């Protein structure tokens, strides 16, 4: 009976030692090792495609004084979301109308219909009109008062094509009755002395009005005021 009891105790001790060895070692070694620290690792595990790698900031004419330059940050969140849904046309539009470069995809600069690749595109600094206030709620901003819209008129833009295996971007003329409206959310408060004063959020082609072929139709009701 005593032998049996001793054997059971021995087995239990062995079992427990084996089972909790990991914890035991961790407890004993952590006394002598520095605790691991959290480190921020820049970037993601997978590389971002070049066509989604917008410049982090872009130069524009100040909404408040056309004679002065300012800088806006470029939001990549919505573009990434669109890309995940395989919707690339709005991304191609931004490259064409705002950044002024063809979307950086293979063969874009050498494929026949695209050459010369940058001709006809516009950059943000070439905007010819600027409005403030979008007369609608935008997240926490009930009236969209802190949104400014830059109007651009690229003569050409890139279309996302999936049927041509040579190049996924094909340059085509912009219809005459369209302009590109780019929306920027101003920082609150908007400090004109800071390096950037707002973030570029989204844009799109809109029809021009019958009275002015350079301005969006209904611009008087669409926006609160014209800045320049």
């Amino acid at each position, binding site marked *: 009976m005593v032998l049996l009891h001793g054997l059971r105790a021995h087995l239990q001790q062995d079992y427990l030692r084996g089972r909790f060895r990991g914890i035991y070692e961790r407890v004993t070694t952590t006394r002598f090792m520095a605790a691991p620290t959290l480190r921020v690792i820049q970037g993601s595990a997978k590389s971002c*495609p070049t066509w989604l790698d917008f410049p982090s900031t872009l130069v524009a004419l100040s909404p408040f004084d056309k004679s002065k330059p300012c800088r806006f940050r470029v939001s990549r969140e919505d573009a990434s979301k669109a890309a995940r849904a395989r919707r690339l046309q709005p991304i191609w539009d931004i490259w064409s109308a705002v950044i002024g470069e063809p979307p950086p995809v293979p063969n874009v600069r050498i494929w026949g219909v695209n050459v010369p690749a940058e001709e006809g595109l516009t950059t943000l600094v070439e905007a010819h009109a600027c409005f403030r206030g979008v007369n609608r*709620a935008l*997240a926490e901003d009930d009236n969209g008062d802190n949104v400014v819209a830059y109007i651009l008129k690229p003569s050409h833009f890139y279309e996302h094509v999936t049927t041509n295996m040579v190049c*996924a971007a094909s340059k085509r003329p912009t*219809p005459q009755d369209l302009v590109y409206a780019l929306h920027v959310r101003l920082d609150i408060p908007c400090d004109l002395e800071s390096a950037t004063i707002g973030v570029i959020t989204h844009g799109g082609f809109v029809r021009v009005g019958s009275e002015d072929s350079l301005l969006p139709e209904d611009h008087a009701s669409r926006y609160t005021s014209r800045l320049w």
Partner: protein
Amino acid sequence: MDDTITVGTDLFARYAPVAVYYEDADTVEYIRQDVPSVNRRVDGFLTLVLDMTSRKPIGFRLKGFKNFYLHHIKNTEHEDREEFLYLVGVIEKAIEIAGNKVFEPEAREAYDQACQIAKEDNAYLRELPDAA
């Protein structure tokens, strides 16, 4: 939706229509085709998206969506709400709210077109605004 975007992302992959909430723009977008398009503003809530070539509606945008959702939809939902938010219901709610105002015939037609697209495609939103 495949969530990966890498250098190797297939530039020639076909787009499958899906409703997406864009947080920076505070807009829900539902588009049938990934083609060059023109935005036709209907009012502060709805924009119809037209094919740039044919100028026929291929989708719509619901603007100021977070605000609209918090004020008009979230409170009316039950605890056992569905996982998805069907967009036809959202558009119908917008029409109901604007009901007292007189819809101009053109705007009414635009709302009907958006409603039809949402209904035909059974479009739904899976991801709601953050604060929702």
